[in-house]
């Protein structure tokens, strides 16, 4: 004859225990998955920030002290423009060409054919909007609207950031009478 100690669990007890266990594990697991996705998004934002900051800042630093030699251009970054270029004459570095190229599917910015954004991010759209270049009585402005997207991971963890900045040339010799 079996004693009480040997009886084991009843089916009901087992089901209840399994249900409670499943619920707890599922909620903790869900939290874990959420945390991982957030982490991926945060990493994406960080990559975008690094690339945008570096690319725009290095272009801005050179454009400020240079003469923009490419002519005025309209902005059309949303049109499927695969390439855009900006040429400047830098007092020390000489002729410099900045180029945006998305013909390979991943948008990358180049300075004299050397990439200045990493392939971790896709520069989804970019434009050099130049105004006031040449002898027109206006200081040269270069406006750069840019959309950057992080790559890798699932689509839900990708981040897209759109930003814009304008740089004014410090060169007065072109227009000053």
């Amino acid at each position, binding site marked *: 004859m079996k004693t009480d100690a040997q009886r084991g669990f009843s089916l009901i007890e087992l089901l209840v225990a399994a249900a409670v266990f499943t619920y707890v594990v599922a909620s903790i697991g869900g939290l874990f998955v959420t945390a991982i996705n*957030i982490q991926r998004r945060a990493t994406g*934002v960080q990559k975008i*920030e690094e690339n945008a900051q570096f690319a725009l800042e290095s272009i801005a630093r050179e454009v400020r002290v240079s003469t923009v030699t490419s002519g005025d251009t309209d902005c059309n970054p949303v049109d499927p423009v695969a390439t855009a270029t900006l040429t400047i004459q830098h007092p020390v570095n000489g002729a410099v060409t900045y180029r945006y190229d998305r013909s390979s599917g991943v948008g990358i910015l180049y300075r004299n054919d050397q990439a200045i954004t990493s392939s971790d991010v896709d520069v989804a759209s970019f434009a050099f909007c130049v105004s006031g270049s040449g002898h027109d009585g206006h200081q040269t*402005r270069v406006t750069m*609207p840019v959309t950057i997207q992080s790559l890798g991971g699932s689509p839900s963890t990708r981040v897209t950031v759109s930003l*814009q900045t304008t740089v004014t040339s410090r060169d007065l010799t072109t227009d000053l009478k």
Partner: protein
Amino acid sequence: MSRHQDSSNCNRRQRGFTLIEALVALTLLGVGLIPAFIQASNSIALADSVQNSLVATHLAQEGVEVVRAIRDDDWFAGSAFGASLGGCASGCLVQYDSPSLIPLTDNPALKRDQTGLFNYDSGTATIYHRMVTITPVSPHELKVVVSVTWTERTGAKHFDVEDHLFDWLK
């Protein structure tokens, strides 16, 4: 006798948890999970915040650069230093292609149009508001402050840039 003792021990072992024990266990679980939830939600807010700050810093820089371009245009036109930069002590607006300062009626949100440009004329409103304040420090120096404000999950944020323009051209 010994058999009876064994059986009573077994019964005690089978009693399961008391309510208090169960509550203590759940509280401990909760204490463990709540900070994790808070941490996760903080991370979301922080990632958004970094993103918004990145956009705001570039918009603020744009403001400073456009004001500088207007100063240079005055020089090219033979006008005096700061001729087009007056009347902005209590704030005004500029956009990327402004030939002159835009008077401030209120401080509308910047829009982003079809071509991706931030401007005031067309497009859908963004969360960013930008105001420029220009105050003379001396007849040959202007203080330019560009203030970008926006509201995010954790409340109102702002990013200010200060620049000084000088009348150095003789």
